[in-house]
C-alpha cells in the first residue's frame, strides 16, 4: 500500500466510526420511539378507563 | 490529637480482626504461599534455556501480582459472608479506617507470600539485591492500597471474582514497571522514587474515596 493509501485508510476509519455511531444511535432512537408508543397507548387506556 | 489516636486504634482493631480471622480459618494465606511457589516452578518450565535473569525477574512480578489478586479476591469475603460490612459501615469509626485496616491486613498477607517468593526466586533463578527488595516492598504498598478499594468495588458487583483482575491490572502496570525497573535497572533509585510517588497518589485517592464505595 502506498503512503497516500494509508492516509486514506486513516481518514476513512474515522469516517466509518462516526457513521457506525450514527447507525447505533438510529437504532436506539427506533427503540425509544417504540417504547414511547407503548407508553402512550398505556396512558390512553388509562384515561379511557379512569 | 486524641481523634488521631482513636482513628489509629480503630485501624489497628480492624487489622487485628482480619489477621485473627485468617489465623483461625487458614484459607487464604496458605493458598497464596503455595500459589506463588507453584507459579515460580511453572516459570522454570515456561522459560526457554538461555533466558536472561532479567526476563525471569519480570516473571517474578507476574507471580507477585497474581498472588496478590488471589489474596485480594478473598479480602472482603469475611465481611460479605458474615453480613458484617453493613455493621462496619454503621459503626462509629471513620469509613476510611475500614479501608486502611483492610489494606494493612492484606499487606501482611502479601508480605508473607513475598517472604516465600523472594528466597525461592533467588534459589531457582537469580539473586535479589537490596534495591529490588525495596521495590517489592514499595510496590506491595501500592498493590494493597489500590487493590483493597477495587476489591470492595468488585464485592458490590455480580461478577465478583472475575471483575477484580480486569479492574486491577491496568492500575498495576505502573507498579510492575517500577518493581521490575528497581530490580534490573542500574538507576534503581529512580524507579523506587516513582513507586513512592504512585503509592502517595493512589493511597490518598483510595483513602479519600473509600467511603463512597461502600455506603449503600
Amino acid at each position: 500500500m502506498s503512503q497516500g493509501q494509508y492516509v486514506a485508510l486513516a481518514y476513512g476509519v474515522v469516517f466509518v466510526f462516526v457513521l457506525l455511531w450514527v447507525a447505533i444511535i438510529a437504532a436506539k432512537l427506533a427503540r425509544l420511539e417504540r417504547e414511547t408508543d407503548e407508553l402512550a397507548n398505556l396512558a390512553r387506556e388509562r384515561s379511557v378507563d379512569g | 490529637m486524641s481523634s488521631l489516636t482513636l482513628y489509629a486504634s480503630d485501624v489497628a482493631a480492624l487489622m487485628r480482626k482480619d489477621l485473627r480471622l485468617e489465623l483461625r480459618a487458614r484459607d487464604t494465606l496458605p493458598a497464596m504461599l503455595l500459589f506463588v511457589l507453584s507459579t515460580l516452578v511453572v516459570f522454570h518450565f515456561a522459560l526457554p534455556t538461555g533466558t536472561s535473569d532479567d526476563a525471569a525477574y519480570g516473571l517474578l512480578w507476574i507471580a507477585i501480582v497474581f498472588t496478590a489478586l488471589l489474596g485480594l479476591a478473598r479480602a472482603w469475603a469475611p465481611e460479605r459472608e458474615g453480613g458484617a460490612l453493613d455493621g462496619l459501615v454503621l459503626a462509629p469509626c471513620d469509613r476510611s479506617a475500614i479501608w486502611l485496616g483492610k489494606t494493612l491486613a492484606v499487606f501482611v498477607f502479601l508480605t508473607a507470600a513475598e517472604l516465600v517468593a523472594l528466597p525461592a526466586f533467588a534459589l531457582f533463578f537469580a539473586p535479589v539485591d537490596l534495591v529490588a527488595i525495596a521495590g517489592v516492598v514499595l510496590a506491595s504498598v501500592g498493590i494493597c492500597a489500590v487493590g483493597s478499594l477495587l476489591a470492595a468495588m468488585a464485592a458490590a458487583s455480580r461478577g465478583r471474582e472475575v471483575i477484580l483482575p480486569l479492574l486491577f491490572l491496568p492500575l498495576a502496570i505502573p507498579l510492575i514497571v517500577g518493581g521490575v525497573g528497581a530490580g534490573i535497572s542500574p538507576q534503581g533509585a529512580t524507579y523506587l522514587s516513582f513507586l513512592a510517588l504512585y503509592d502517595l497518589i493512589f493511597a490518598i485517592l483510595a483513602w479519600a474515596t473509600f467511603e463512597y464505595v461502600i455506603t449503600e
Partner: protein
Amino acid sequence: MSSRNNLPVLAFATTALLGIAVVLALLVAPEDVDQGVSQRIFYFHVPIALTAYLCFGLGAWKALRLLSVGGERRDLESYTWIHQGTIFGALTLITGSIWAKASWGVWWSWGSNQLVLFLVLFLFYCAYFMLRFSVDEGARRERICAVYALFGVALIPVSFFAIRLASDFIHPTVFTREGPQMTGTMFGSFLVCWAGITLLAYVMYRIELVGKRTDANLRELREALS
C-alpha cells in the same frame, strides 16, 4: 429546558468545520519535507488523542461533582463523557497504528509512548464499562463508577511516566519521527482540525446524553403507568 436547543446548530457547525478541516488537512496544507504524505494523518490523529484526554478529564470532573454535590444527572454525564473518551481512544489507537505502518512499516511499536499509553488507558476504561454493567443500578453504582473515573485521570500522568521509565529497560526499537517543522499553514490547519474534532466529540456527547436521559425518563414513566 430544550426551548433554546442549540444542538442542531452545533451539529451543522461541526459538519462545516470538519469539512473545511479535511480540505485543509488533505489539500491545502503543504506536504511535509521529511515524512511525505503520511504526515497528513497527524492532522486528525493528534486532535483525536487530545480530545480523548479531554473527554476522560470531563468524565472525571463530572464524577467529582457527583461525589461532592450529587445528582443522577451527573452520573449520566460522567458516563457519557467516558464513553466518548473510549470511542476517541479507540480511534487514537487505530489511526496511530495506521500512521505507524505508514511511517515505519510496522502496525505496532512498543517504542511509541503515546500508543502504549492509550492502550493502557483503553484497557482501564473498558473495565469501567464492565464494572458499570455488573453492578446493580442505584446510587451505589453511581458512586463506584465516579470513584473509578477519578482513578482513571490519576492513572493518566502516572502511566505516562511509567511508560517513559519502562523504555529504559525494555529497549524497544525506537522509531523517531521528526517533529514536523510546522509552517503557519500547517499549524492553522491543525487548529481547525482540532476545533472540529473537539466539537464533534461534544455534539456526540450531547446526542448520547439525550438518548440516555430519555431512557431514564421512559423507565420512570413505565413504572408510573403500570
